[in-house]
């Protein structure tokens, strides 16, 4: 079956809706999706043009807005990266450096105890990278010591070591070095990326209405 651009737009919209609803209870997820789908089915009958589809979706508003309204209805706190979430992410990243192992474990406990994240977020936060930057440091230290151990250079003088190793072992080792460097970069970037991801996920979707909610009333 051929999908028209309009159908694809609706499909993408509904997928985005599903993603935005991830932390809602299953009952309201199903109901909201059914309501929105019925709305679209009803609005877009008999082979609508792409412009009509775009127009209908614009009028519906973004999935994030709709889900925010549902969250409000359920009385769910708009998940926001407050000091607690920020502290959790910091501990996950560098807690293990400040207080070996313990710092990171405290971060993990805070992460799993928080309601600002879904299980998937928590899994990512825990396993990318275990130990945070302490884990990265450990992996890098192990990696460097094992690769310099296998080096055929007889006198590993500090500055000359890398050069010496490269010259000694030739082509296949260059590939290994490149892979190791890539791995090292990945290990350096991954904790930061997962930390930023957690901070972003703990916040509601960007929306002009948020930020300064008056406390009065």
């Amino acid at each position, binding site marked *: 079956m051929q999908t028209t651009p309009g159908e694809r737009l609706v499909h993408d919209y509904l997928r985005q809706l599903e993603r935005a609803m991830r932390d809602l209870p299953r009952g309201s997820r199903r109901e*909201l999706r059914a309501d929105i789908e*019925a*709305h679209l089915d*009803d609005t877009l009958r008999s082979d609508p043009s792409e412009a009509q589809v775009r127009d209908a979706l614009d009028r*519906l508003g*973004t999935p994030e807005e*709709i889900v925010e309204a549902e969250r409000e209805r359920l009385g769910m706190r708009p998940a926001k990266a407050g000091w607690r979430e920020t502290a959790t992410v910091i501990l996950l990243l560098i807690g293990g450096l400040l207080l070996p192992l313990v710092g990171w474990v405290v971060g993990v406990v805070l992460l799993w105890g928080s309601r600002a994240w879904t299980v998937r977020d928590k899994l990512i936060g825990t396993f990318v990278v275990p130990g945070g930057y302490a884990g990265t440091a450990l992996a890098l230290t192990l990696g460097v010591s094992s690769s310099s151990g296998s080096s055929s250079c007889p006198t590993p003088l500090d500055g000359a070591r890398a050069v010496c190793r490269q010259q000694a072992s030739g082509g296949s080792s260059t590939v290994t070095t490149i892979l190791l460097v890539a791995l090292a970069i990945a290990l350096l970037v991954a904790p930061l990326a997962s930390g930023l991801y957690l901070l972003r996920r703990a916040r509601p979707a960007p929306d002009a209405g948020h930020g*300064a909610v008056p406390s009065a009333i």
Partner: protein
Amino acid sequence: MEPGRPDRDTVSQLRRGVLEYCVLALLRDDERYAVDLVHALSGVDGMVTSEGTLYPLLSRLRRDGMLESSWRESPSGPPRRYYRVSRAGRSALERFSAEWSRFRSSVDGVLEGRV
């Protein structure tokens, strides 16, 4: 805080507060199906910015017993959910209408310096 922000927040909070009574009022005389109701509301100037956010409101009103709904076959296309106002919804609407006209004339009075 950006200038202009507080105004918009105030207006959107006001709107949020009265929106559910507008839903009840639109259903006062007739039952309507969801899309019809949503389009009627979004046709009112300044009332609704995104139609989709009305669905959570409709579920809340239904769960609070202000609205009743039932699915019905439509002459063309998939079945539709029809909404009508319940007895509780009707009396909530009457109370609000009385309160609202008092509130409106008080605010107008203050704003126009008649107090």
